């Protein structure tokens, strides 16, 4: 009895401690996490003082000493004596601020989230691997290794990251490791390849082929081509119309045999991210300084820690400043003494699906070009936290991986089952070489040469130099296709449906120093229909591009401030055309809130300003109107997902086809609705939903309160580490493209100088540090939300007279 009495408290203490040492479901390990000596308390950082502090750190792998100075935003300016040390330092310093994010994102990219969160991460992990994320990263890593400089850079970066990881003990792990209860693993160069590959997932994995085939099956080719035209009615293409072609086109491949695929049925909802970007460059004759200026704002899913990490990298032969992506070396968007560059995404069609005919259940052979061919298999192993590991076999045809077999349920509704995926992201590539060379480019020739190495995700690379040049290349590897090839699902047995080659890089759409004095891109159509190659049928809506071109055309004596104004432009160019059309047909119920709303729209200055009520009414109305016109015809059956016609096509129908049969709601059997009825009905419905959501028409109807822009932590549901309800105007078709979850992830404006002292301003919605316990975690958000920019400190040596430096770190060799 006594024995039990003595053991019982001990057993209780052990159980208690065990419980607090481990995580349970989403509950973190409370003992470890809350201990003031080990847990999150340790992650709180003292904000630095205004005086310059000095620190010495020893890291292995350096050849010489590296000097790093941090400015008041926590941006490191790195001065190394050779390339190798520069990239060791970049890896080390990035990891110092962003280790968890780097690792989490590459785990996500590589389909390894279930190692951290357990079984609930499996569907996403399997999707990543079946789409060939790891396969693609391995291929692109092969490509990178062909360039010795890239190999050295990647290895040095990786050594730097590992030097930081090795300096950590459990108590100073970044906060998220403590919350999710795991430890960082060694970094490897292939993780950088995975990170770059993931950019293709983020920017170039959109696919409508399945939905288009479903439309083809229901309505036939004529309707499909009429409602989903291959070029917009209103457009202002990226390459100015009339730009002379400096190449002789190669022959276009023969069209595949006509094919109507099986389409398919599935239920999983799909997210449709509103991501795009703006960039432009203006010639010296339009600027006050007389030299070109360049602006860029890539729109991505807004998140914390920030997507971008600012750095200045200096070594013999390079002095570059800009935004880097944690996980990969070099500056991605930035400037140096002589040139500036930026990117926006190209919406061309570089992803196709081939319906596969397997010989039998073993899937060892498939039918192609009149014979049975062998599939290859790739084994993917998943180590699931708290579960036994799982082994998955992915079948490959010569096209690529069969992402889902016919009986499987896909992760996203736009992914067909029983189809092989042909995707540019599976090609061997050398993106790293492009950025390495861009960082060091001194003129147009260097820039153009750097771009020849780039494959995916295709980008509109805007460029300006202090020699007075501006240029834009729509750049990447584009499959050489017959007209509209791959708009619909393709026949995997037809060799004519295969990709047979690529558009020669020098034939990629490009323009240099156009007469109009500016170049720009906003994800719209790359070229006008006179371009000899087919690149895709659907790009981002033209509104942002048209507005930017309209403004740049009108602007002269351009300054930093006027370009900042354009980046923050809230003008609703769609409303300029659409609102008068709608108002002319609207029969609103008289008086009450409907009357007030009509007045509000009549008063509206067409600006999607943060406090605008007109913007809320218009945007919500357009949303419901589009649904009222098309949902009955195109979203009637959730098992047969379809696209809806674009707003461009819808406006065309409003203008030219008021009697079209599409106006009728086919769900109302005994009634034939007219255009006026649909317009008026959707107006009433829209006002009713707004009243229900925000009460009587008043300040609660402000656009920002309706839109709810938020910057969320990468761990879903982690509101405490997020910034929500940010007062921002803008919208998806607005130059200031801030939506609920997406927006300008980095804004930069550069004014070049003959003397090699460029002036630049920039900001991103977050902060340099990934640590929620640091003052630099989110200190730039307010500046960003106000539409302001910070002056970027471009140094020649690790000293500065303006007193902006806060911290100096000497990195020396650890023996």
């Amino acid at each position, binding site marked *: 009895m006594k024995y039990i009495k003595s053991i019982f*408290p*001990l057993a209780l*203490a052990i159980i208690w401690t065990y419980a607090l040492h481990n995580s349970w479901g989403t509950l973190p390990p409370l003992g470890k996490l809350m201990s*003031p000596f080990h847990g999150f308390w340790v*992650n*709180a*950082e*003292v*904000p630095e003082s205004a005086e310059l502090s000095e620190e010495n750190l020893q890291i292995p792998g350096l050849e010489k000493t590296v000097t790093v100075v941090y400015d008041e935003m926590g941006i490191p300016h790195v001065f190394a004596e050779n390339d190798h040390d520069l990239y060791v330092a970049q890896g080390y310093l990035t990891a110092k601020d962003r280790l968890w994010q780097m690792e989490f994102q590459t785990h996500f990219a590589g389909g390894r989230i279930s190692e951290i969160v357990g079984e609930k991460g499996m569907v996403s992990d399997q999707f990543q691997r079946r789409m060939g994320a790891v396969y693609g990263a391995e291929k692109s890593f092969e490509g990178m290794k062909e360039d010795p400089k890239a190999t050295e850079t990647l290895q040095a970066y990786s050594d730097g990251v590992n030097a930081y990881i090795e300096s950590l003990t459990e108590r100073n792990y970044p906060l998220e490791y403590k919350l999710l209860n795991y430890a960082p693993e060694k970094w490897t160069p292939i993780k950088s390849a995975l990170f770059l590959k993931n950019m293709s997932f983020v920017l170039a994995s959109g696919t409508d082929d399945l939905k288009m085939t479903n439309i083809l099956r229901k309505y036939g080719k004529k309707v499909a081509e009429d409602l989903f035209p291959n070029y917009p009615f209103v457009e202002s293409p990226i390459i100015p119309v009339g730009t002379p072609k400096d190449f002789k086109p190669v022959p276009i491949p023969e069209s595949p045999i006509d094919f109507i695929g099986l389409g398919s049925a599935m239920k999983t909802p799909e997210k449709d991210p509103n991501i795009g970007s703006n960039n432009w460059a203006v010639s010296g004759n339009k600027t006050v300084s007389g030299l070109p200026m360049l602006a860029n704002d890539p729109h991505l899913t807004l998140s914390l820690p920030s997507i971008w990490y600012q750095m200045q990298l200096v070594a013999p032969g390079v002095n570059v400043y800009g935004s880097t992506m944690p996980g990969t070396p070099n500056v991605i968007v930035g400037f140096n003494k002589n040139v500036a560059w930026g990117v926006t995404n190209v919406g061309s069609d570089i992803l196709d699906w081939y319906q596969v005919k397997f010989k039998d259940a073993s899937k060892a052979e498939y039918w192609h070009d009149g014979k049975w061919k062998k599939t290859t298999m790739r084994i993917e192993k998943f180590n699931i936290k708290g579960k036994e590991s799982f082994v998955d076999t992915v079948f490959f045809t010569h096209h690529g991986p069969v992402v889902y077999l016919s009986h499987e349920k896909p992760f996203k509704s736009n992914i067909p089952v029983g189809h092989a995926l042909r995707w540019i992201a599976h090609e061997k590539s050398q993106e790293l070489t492009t950025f390495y060379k861009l960082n060091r480019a001194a003129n147009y020739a260097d820039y153009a040469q750097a771009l020849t190495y780039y494959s995916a995700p295709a980008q509109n690379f805007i460029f300006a130099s202090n020699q007075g040049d501006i240029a834009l290349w729509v750049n990447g590897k584009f499959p050489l296709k017959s007209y509209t090839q791959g708009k619909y699902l393709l026949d995997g047995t037809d060799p004519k449906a295969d990709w047979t080659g690529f558009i020669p890089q020098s034939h990629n759409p490009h323009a240099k120093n156009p007469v109009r004095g500016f170049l720009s891109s906003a994800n719209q159509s790359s070229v006008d229909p006179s371009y000899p190659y087919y690149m895709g049928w659907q790009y981002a809506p033209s509104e942002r591009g048209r507005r930017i071109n309209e403004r740049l055309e009108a602007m002269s004596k351009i300054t930093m401030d006027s370009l900042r104004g354009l980046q923050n432009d809230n003008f609703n160019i769609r409303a300029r055309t659409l609102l008068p059309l709608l108002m002319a047909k609207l029969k609103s119920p008289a008086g009450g809130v409907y009357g007030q709303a009509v007045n509000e729209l009549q008063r509206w200055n067409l600006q999607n300003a943060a406090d605008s009520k007109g913007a809320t009414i218009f945007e919500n109305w357009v949303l419901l109107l589009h649904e009222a016109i098309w949902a009955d015809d195109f979203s009637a059956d959730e098992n047969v997902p379809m696209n809806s016609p674009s707003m461009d096509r819808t406006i065309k129908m409003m203008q030219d086809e008021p009697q079209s049969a599409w106006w009728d709601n086919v769900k109302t059997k005994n009634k034939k609705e007219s255009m006026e009825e649909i317009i008026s009905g959707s107006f009433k419905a829209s006002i009713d939903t707004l009243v229900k959501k925000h009460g009587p028409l008043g300040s609660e109807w402000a656009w920002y309160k309706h839109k709810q822009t938020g910057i969320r932590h990468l761990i879903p549901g982690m509101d405490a580490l997020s910034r929500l309800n940010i007062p921002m105007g803008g919208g998806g078709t607005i130059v200031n493209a801030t939506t609920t979850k997406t927006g300008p992830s980095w804004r930069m404006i550069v004014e070049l100088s003959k003397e090699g002292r460029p002036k630049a301003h920039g900001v991103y919605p977050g902060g340099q540090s990934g640590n929620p316990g640091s003052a630099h975690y989110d200190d730039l958000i307010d500046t960003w939300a106000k539409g302001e920019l910070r002056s970027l400190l471009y140094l020649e040596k690790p000293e500065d007279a303006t007193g902006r430096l806060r911290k100096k770190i000497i990195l020396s060799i650890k023996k």
Partner: protein
Amino acid sequence: MKKSLSFSYQVAIVLVMVVIGAISGLYLPWYTLGILFALLAYILRIPTGRAFALGLVSGFLLWAVSAFWIDGQHPSSLPERMAHLFPLGGSVVGLYIVTGVLGGLTGGLWAWAGANLRFNK
């Protein structure tokens, strides 16, 4: 073992526990706090009736005061964020208390276990 302890002796025990707990916290894993408290209760022959309370008070003081002190030395928005996460409505004082209670219960249970190992053989 029904010996009563003087108040000052009890204060001395708490002080020893807090100091030893703090030193171990700086160098060893978080749970060594418990193991050391059990050892102290065993060696110092703390009565089973008082061990839990003394361990609780020591653990609570050590963790709550350390959290308060660290927060004072490293002012950041992190504790407030964590107090939203838990959820304590953003109350940092609430977070000191939760921290203290976790340290206290760990210390108390182990001190009690140590005393029982000594006196219930």
